[in-house]
């Protein structure tokens, strides 16, 4: 499986954010889209999941059998291949936790015992067991984030897109999420995430795409990106120290 993004240009009405963004990612890895605020990370995700239209450039998913799915031409088929966790949890007001998950499984046509067992295991991992009858709308931000994570990992999506996965999560949930991401990548899936927690990113990411002003500044393993930025391997967490300094 491969994700191809070629000369993607986009943003919001009258405000271009992405400037001919291009990268190519193979499955089986956890990739981080890193950058300072306003670099274009969330906007890239919005284009990838179809929340914003692709006006220029190309986004394609090449499946393991060689089938190519173009986002602009086959948006529904493309989106059926992905799981998405937005920065702010988006949930139904009127559905309970169990109903959220049932709806998700039914929409992906996988409401079977195997997937329900997986859901039960995920609920246990994130300590949500016993809360299936609750309304997630009334949960705290961290609990809502857990619901989104359970939903994303309940289905077999080849591409998982996660915007700021660790915000609001307790330390146990952060570790559980890292394990899940690693396991999915090991199974051949591609995890694409953004985070500002560089220490976590360094330990988790197989590849980094460093963004600045809607362009790719550097790409490679965390150590390679640190080297490209003139830092030693152990100083990955200082990645933005120079570019983040206020101009004198």
């Amino acid at each position: 499986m491969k994700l191809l993004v070629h000369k993607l240009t986009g943003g919001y009405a009258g405000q271009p954010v992405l400037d001919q963004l291009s990268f190519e990612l193979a499955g089986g890895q956890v990739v981080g889209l890193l950058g300072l605020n306003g670099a274009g990370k969330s906007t890239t995700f919005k284009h990838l999941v179809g929340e914003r239209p692709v006006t220029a450039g190309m986004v394609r998913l090449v499946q393991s059998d060689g089938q190519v799915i173009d986002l602009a031409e086959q948006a529904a088929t493309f989106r059926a291949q992905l799981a998405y966790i937005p920065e702010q949890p988006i949930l139904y007001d009127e559905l309970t936790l169990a109903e959220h998950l049932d709806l998700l499984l039914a929409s992906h046509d996988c409401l079977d015992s195997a997937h329900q067992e997986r859901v039960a295991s995920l609920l246990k991992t994130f300590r949500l067991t016993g809360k299936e009858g609750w309304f997630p709308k009334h949960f705290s931000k961290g609990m809502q984030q857990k619901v989104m994570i359970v939903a994303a990992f309940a289905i077999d999506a080849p591409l998982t897109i996660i915007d700021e996965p660790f915000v609001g999560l307790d330390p146990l949930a952060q570790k559980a999420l890292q394990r899940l991401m690693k396991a999915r990548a090991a199974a051949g899936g591609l995890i694409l995430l953004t985070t500002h927690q560089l220490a976590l990113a360094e330990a988790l990411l197989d590849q980094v795409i460093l963004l600045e002003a809607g362009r790719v500044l550097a790409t490679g393993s965390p150590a390679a990106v640190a080297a490209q930025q003139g830092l030693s391997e152990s100083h990955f967490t200082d990645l933005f120290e120079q570019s983040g300094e206020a101009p004198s």
Partner: protein
Amino acid sequence: MMDMAALYHRRKQQAQKEQQRYLKLLFNDHFVLFLFLCFGLAILALKQAVQTDAFATANRPYWYLALTGLALFFLHLGQLDTQLKQADAIFLLGAEEGLAGPYLREAWRHSLRLAFIWQGLGWFLMMPILLYLGWHGPSRYGALLLLLLAMKAVLLQQDYRQLFVQAGRPLPIGLRLLVGCLLCYLFFCLPELGQWVLACLLTIFAGWALYDGRTLGQSLSFERTLAQAGQYQQRRYAFYRLFAEVPKQTTVVKRHAALDVFLKALPFQKDPLQRLYWLSCFRAGEQGRLIVRLTLLLLCLLPFIQMTANWGWICLGAGFAYLLELQLLPIADRLNQVFWTRFYFVHPDRRRQAFARFARKVTGLAALLVTLVLAISQSFLAGLFFLLAACLTSYLWQQLYLPKKRSNS
């Protein structure tokens, strides 16, 4: 495979339950009074028009213009009700083909039925005027109904197309309005045969548009679908909010550059409570916009209103002030619920006084503006009667109704 049509039905039933709850809230004393006033004014206006021979042949173009306005108003009602929610873009990603197919087709059918009911109501309301204009026999009324239904079907189909990725740019709203206006006015001016030809042509066009819609792809534009669904909900809530306190409502916060200049002139140091009411009125919710629209509408209509007796101006002034005061109430409630209790502890008496000052200023400014135009376009006496009635209504509202409402709550 998930039954997406059934999902739409479930959501529709939930929405209908909510609507029933809101309708119970809506049919309170204010709304019934408003309907009663509107009905009474319409009957009086019709009676006066008959007595003054306003339906004479020379005046027909004006009546056709008024009927066109009424038709456009009803064509605006009955929007596409998709019942789509923000979370669908995440939880139903795997069933997008079902959403774009059975789900939206069901939504389209339901919306079309509702839209046709609205057009039928508009058609029914036009009948008395058309009767006085000399439309006898059912044939022309049939053509009018066919025209309205066909136009609504085309408009609804255009909105439906916009939900898909493959759709082109929508027609600008101004152009849609212009085309609708021209078609309606042309229809009223045509002889009976011409009216049937126009109605049939539009029906054929509507049929073609419906057929063409079947070729749309399976990819939804989530950006447009969710924006459309959000706007639809906002409009529904805005309608209920006109006359009732709607629970679970979300407010849209917006800044307007022109108003900011005015709001800056009210510093927090001078009268912080009053400034908060002004800010809340013109930035959050619909109230500020509704008041401005109501005033502008009245200003535009004033030159065309002919009243032989002064009681007409008195009624208009009282009704105008009543509606303005009614619109301002949610602002006090909103700040009472959120701001005053959580962030800023102000004695209830001070809050009431500040709100009374604010409401007096808003109603006074709007009434004064209308009075000025009235004095110029009609007569000084008409303006005076209007102003006195507005001031008296505002005073009675503040002194009698509000204390009673507060003691009940």
